[in-house]
C-alpha cells in the first residue's frame, strides 16, 4: 500500500518551454526596459561590427597570407623536409581521433565534425592539389582512428595516454632530425625553425620541462629541509620578480658572457630554457596552492598506514593537489603559448617574428591588418582549444570528488 502511495507522489519536473522565442522572451524582452536595452546593445554591436565585416570581406587583401602561408606555418624550414611537419600532424590526427573515440562517447557527431574540419580547408580556392590530398588524408586518418577508438573502447584508454606522453618528445625528434635518423631525416638547424611550428615547439618544450621542475620547486618550498626550502623560495621569488622579456634578453645576451668564448649555445634552445625557467616558478606557486588545500587528515591517514614520506606524496597528496590546480595550470600553459610571441623581440622567427619580417618587406608594408588579424585568429583557435580541453579534463577527473 505504501508503495502505491509514494509512487503517486513522485512527479515529473515541470517542463520549461525551450523554443527560441520562449528563451528570447524570458531573457531579452521581459520588461519594457529589457527590450530597450536589447535594442540599444544590438545597435551598438551593429555599428561596431559592420565596418569590420565590410572591410574583411570587401577591402582586405588576403593574398599576403596566401603567398606567405608556408613561411607563416613553418618559417624557413627546408621545403624538402616539410613532410616531417606533415608527419607530426598525421600522428596528432591519429592520436586525437583515437582519444576522442575512447573518451568522448556521448556526442560522436561533435567529435566527427571536429575531426573532419581539415576537409573544410579543401574548399579554399588556391590550394595545391598536393596540400589538398594531404588534408583529406589527415581527416581520413583521424576518422579511422576515431572509429577504432570507439570500437575498442575503454581498453585503449591506457594506450591513448601513453601515446600522448610519447607524442611530444617524438615531435621534437622528428623536427630536429639527425643522430640515428641522419639518413632518413637529416638534422635541420634550429635557426631554420620558424612560424607556427616554432611557436608550438616552444610551447611544448616549455610545458614538458616546466611541469616537473615546478612540482619539484613546490615540494621544495614546503620541505622540512631548510636548504631545499631556501633554494626553492629564492628561485621562485627571483624569477617571479622579473618580466619574461628580461629573462629572454638575459638568456640571449648575457648567458654567452659567462661561457667560454667559442661556446655559443643555440638561440632557440636558450629561448626554450628561458621560457621553461620562467613558467616553472609560476607553476610552483600554483602547485603549492594545491598542496596547501589538502587536509592534514590525508597525511595522517597515510602515515598511520605506514606509508613512507615519498609514497605519501606520490600516491596520496600530489594526485589530489594536482587535480585541484588543473584549471590554473592550464591557464598558465595558455599564457605560455601566447607569451612565446615575446621571443620575436630576441630575433626568433616564430609566428609573430615571421609576420613582422614579412611585413618588413616593401611590397607587404601596407598589409599589417590582414597579417595581424590572421595570426590573432590562429592564437585564438589554439588558446580556446586548450581551454576547452582543460574544462573537459576537469569534469572527467572530477569523479569521486562528488
Amino acid at each position: 500500500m505504501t508503495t502505491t502511495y509514494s509512487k503517486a507522489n513522485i512527479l515529473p519536473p515541470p517542463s520549461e518551454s525551450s523554443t527560441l522565442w520562449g528563451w528570447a522572451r524570458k531573457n531579452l524582452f521581459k520588461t519594457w526596459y529589457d527590450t530597450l536595452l536589447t535594442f540599444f546593445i544590438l545597435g551598438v554591436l551593429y555599428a561596431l561590427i559592420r565596418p569590420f565585416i565590410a572591410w574583411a570581406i570587401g577591402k582586405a587583401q588576403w593574398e599576403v597570407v596566401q603567398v606567405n602561408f608556408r613561411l607563416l606555418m613553418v618559417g624557413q624550414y627546408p621545403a624538402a623536409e616539410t613532410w616531417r611537419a606533415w608527419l607530426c600532424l598525421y600522428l596528432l590526427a591519429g592520436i586525437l581521433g583515437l582519444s576522442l573515440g575512447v573518451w568522448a562517447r556521448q556526442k560522436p557527431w561533435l567529435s566527427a565534425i571536429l575531426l573532419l574540419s581539415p576537409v573544410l580547408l579543401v574548399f579554399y580556392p588556391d590550394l595545391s592539389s598536393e596540400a589538398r590530398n594531404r588534408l583529406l588524408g589527415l581527416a581520413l586518418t583521424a576518422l579511422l582512428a576515431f572509429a577504432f577508438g570507439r570500437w575498442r573502447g575503454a581498453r585503449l584508454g591506457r594506450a591513448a595516454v601513453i601515446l600522448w606522453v610519447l607524442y611530444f618528445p617524438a615531435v621534437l625528434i622528428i623536427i630536429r632530425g639527425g643522430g640515428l635518423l641522419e639518413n632518413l631525416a637529416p638534422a635541420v638547424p634550429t635557426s631554420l625553425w620558424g612560424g607556427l611550428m616554432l611557436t608550438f615547439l616552444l610551447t611544448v618544450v616549455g610545458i614538458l620541462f616546466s611541469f616537473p621542475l615546478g612540482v619539484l620547486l613546490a615540494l621544495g618550498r614546503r620541505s622540512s629541509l631548510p636548504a631545499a626550502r631556501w633554494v626553492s623560495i629564492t628561485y621562485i621569488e627571483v624569477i617571479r620578480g622579473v618580466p619574461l622579456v628580461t629573462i629572454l634578453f638575459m638568456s640571449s645576451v648575457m648567458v654567452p658572457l659567462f661561457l667560454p668564448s667559442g661556446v655559443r649555445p643555440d638561440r632557440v634552445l636558450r629561448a626554450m630554457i628561458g621560457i621553461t625557467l620562467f613558467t616553472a616558478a609560476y607553476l610552483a606557486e600554483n602547485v603549492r596552492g594545491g598542496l596547501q588545500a589538502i587536509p592534514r587528515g590525508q597525511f595522517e591517514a597515510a602515515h598511520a598506514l605506514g606509508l613512507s614520506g615519498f609514497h605519501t606524496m606520490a600516491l596520496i597528496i600530489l594526485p589530489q593537489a594536482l587535480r585541484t590546480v588543473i584549471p590554473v595550470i592550464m591557464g598558465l600553459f595558455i599564457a605560455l603559448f601566447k607569451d612565446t610571441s615575446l621571443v620575436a623581440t630576441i630575433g626568433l622567427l616564430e609566428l609573430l617574428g615571421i609576420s613582422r619580417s614579412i611585413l618588413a618587406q616593401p611590397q607587404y608594408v601596407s598589409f599589417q591588418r590582414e597579417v595581424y588579424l590572421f595570426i590573432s585568429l590562429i592564437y585564438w583557435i589554439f588558446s580556446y582549444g586548450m581551454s576547452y580541453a582543460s574544462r573537459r579534463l576537469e569534469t572527467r577527473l572530477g569523479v569521486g570528488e562528488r
Partner: protein
Amino acid sequence: MENVTHDLANNVANKETTANHPIIIARDVHKWFGHFHALRGINMEVHKGEVVVIFGPSGSGKSTFIRTLNRLEEHQRGQIIVDGIELSHDVRNIERVRMETGMVFQSFNLFPHLTVLQNITLAPLWVRKWKKEQAEEIAMQLLERVGIPEQAHKFPGQLSGGQQQRVAIARALAMQPKIMLFDEPTSALDPEMIKEVLDVMIELARSGMTMLVVTHEMGFAKAVAHRMYFFDSGQIVESGTPDEIFTHPKEERTKLFLSQILTH
C-alpha cells in the same frame, strides 16, 4: 648472517614479550602544545587481546594520547613501547610501529581520489609489497566482514558516513595490525549510522583484537571493554573495569562526567 641471527633473536624476544609483557607500555608520558601542557604524566599498560576504552571531556588529552602511540604526535618526555619497539626519533622504528598499528579517525580520512578497493589495498601493495591479487582478495574478505562488499568499486564520496567509516576500518585491518586505535570513530556520524559502525567494532573486539578506543559510546564500553580510563586535564583520573566505573566510580569528577553524558 648477522642479520638473520639478529632477526631470530628479535623473534624470540617478541614471543617472550607477548607472553609476559604488555603489548603497549606508556611510562610518564608528557606532551606540550606550545605552553599548553596537554599530557601530564600518562602511565598505561595494555595486554594483547585487551579492549580499552578511553573517555573524558573534550580537551582532556585522550585523542592526543592515542595519537602518540603511533607517533602522529610526538611525546616530549617519558617512554612509549609498542610491541617491543620504543618510539623515538628513529624513523625506521616509527614505520615499524605504524605497520603494526591500525588507526581509525573521527573524520574517516579516506583517500577521495581512490576507489574503496584501492583505498584498502594501497598500503598492503606499497608497504607490505604484496601481490595485487592477494591484496585484493584480502580486501574483498574485509569488505565482506564489514558488510559492504558491493561498494568496492565506488569512490568514498559516493558512500554514507557509516559506510565510509567501515571502509576506514577495513583499510586499517588490511595491514593485519596487532593493535587497532580508534579516535572517536562515531562522533562524526548521524545517529542511525553509529550502530552499523559499533557492530563492526564489537565483532572485532570479540575476535580478540587489541583495541584502544576513544569514545563516549558507553553501550560499546559496557559490551566489550575490559578496562576503562577516565581522562581529565591531561591526566588519568580513574581507571577500572566497566562495572567498577559505571556502578562504583570513586572520583567526584568521574561521577559528574558520567552523569552528564548518561542523562541527557
